[in-house]
């Protein structure tokens, strides 16, 4: 059973971080948002493990408080 690796796993973290930021260069906010969504989907598929994905979602969501949504009826 694999679990989410939250320890350093990239040989060159600075350049990887820059690569992600650079990927958004010149994009409108909408397209940036689309790029992020595509990346999440591509990487989720590559991870290929629902448990790891769930852990990643939980970690990412930490500290983000939901607003109260109107009832969907």
């Amino acid at each position: 059973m694999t679990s989410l690796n939250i320890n350093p796993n990239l040989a060159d973290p600075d350049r990887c971080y820059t690569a992600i930021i650079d990927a958004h260069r010149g994009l409108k906010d909408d397209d940036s948002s689309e790029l992020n969504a595509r990346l999440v989907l591509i990487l989720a598929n590559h991870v290929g493990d629902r448990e790891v994905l769930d852990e990643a979602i939980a970690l990412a969501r930490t500290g983000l408080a939901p607003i109260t949504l109107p009832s969907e009826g």
Partner: protein
Amino acid sequence: MAAFENKSLYQYEYQRSPDQDAKVPVRHPVVVIGAGPIGLAVAIDLAQRDVPVVLLDDNSRIGEGSRAICFSKRALEVCDKLGVAERMVEKGVTWQVGKVFLEDDEVYTFDLLPEPGHKQPAFINLQQYYVEAYLVDRVLELPRAEVRWLNKVSTVEHLEDGARITVDTPDGPYQMDTDWLIACDGANSDIRAMMGLDFSGKVFQDRFLIADVKMNAGFPSERWFWFEPPFHKGWSALLHKQPDDIWRIDLQLGPDADADEETKPENVIPRLKKMLGDDVEFDLEWVSLYTFQCKRMDEFMQGRVVFAGDAAHQVSPFGARGANSGFEDAQNLAWKLEAIIKGRTGADLMQSYRFERELAADDNIGHSTRATDFISPKSTIARTFRNATLNLAQRAPFAQSMVNSGRLSTPSIYLNSPLHIPDNTVYEGTAQLGAAAVDAPLQTSEGTATWLLDELGPGFTAIAVANGDVPDEVHGIDLHVIGHDLLDSEGLFAQRYDARPGSVYLFRPDQYLCARFRSFDAGAIKIACEHAMKSA
């Protein structure tokens, strides 16, 4: 709702019943409410099982629009036992290819690629009124079934081990008692409302225009689904073929659509012209505006009142899970009622109907909700992810598997059903414990072609594989032995069931696999059979 006349294709006659003149209410073993596909299926199945059944309907005609059009392989297998599948397949449009478009581009094509060696096709499209008409023809052939048109139930009350109903007719009201009342009276079930039972779930805000048009068009027999098509910007659309040159068109209209306005021909026709092109001539057959809902009752049974089909659970149409799952309800409850009414087991067996079909309803509602959320995203970010998926699907196969324009109906698997004996070893193959039998071509010992599903009788059936000895008969169970009275020349039964010499498979009367063993033991089969008839 529509501003033009719906056609009534089939008309039936009200006839006065002797029950209407009885001094005290006549008591029946089973009364079924609603002569839609599910009520008819329940009535036919019971009558074929020699259980007397009275079927009531508040109307006397069929043909109020097309409604359900897409019938699954499993529904056809159920209907084959009811004696109508041949007519359905002959009249229906068999299809297997679906295409998904984003704006102008084809995102991908799927082929249901039905596995060869099954009696029934993967899907057919057929107007619901044809299915109902075939079922009515069939039920009228059965001496054990009685259909009463223009009989509208106005009150229901619980009796000790039964129910009493008041029925309004053109000749005035009368009362009837029944050991079991089966409510198949649709999503707006009057019976459910009269009993004050909850029907809750998710209502989707978006509204969809559903139209059947008659046209001679060159589109193939495929399911075409558009996300944000150029002819209907920002929304979705579906095109699907039915017999008689009728095409089903679904157009998503968003939450503010006005039902009366949108279903007026002068508003529908321009929308369709935009989709089909100005030069395509078509006639409107039927138009309706839907708000999709995924709802179910908390409990599919109250006392001796049992709910089946849309009366018990409602799903949005993408995925064809309404009528198809209703047929599975009908099939699940008919053999159980037979066993109870004939005194072979106690009324508690019907608790397993709740267990199995409530599980199935949750499964179908889950599929239907996820498809509707994908088709009609609820937030900006949900739309972004949806469109990202569609975009990636053109280049990356993984994203195609995420595109959800409706996951087409497959029968539910009754995981952990109290009626089944858990496997004591691992089985390969597509057949699963708790799932409907996977069909396979077989031959009789004389060499005549047959199908596994045709060999499964109205009761429990064991299919054993010969290993030299001829197995003992098991009392009350149909036994077939592959290698003796049946042959598996193509080896597909062996492959699909991971069958080896000595293996034995026990099927319930509704063709669900409820136990399997690696060696034949008449005692173990008898116990498994008793277990499957056991009260919950």
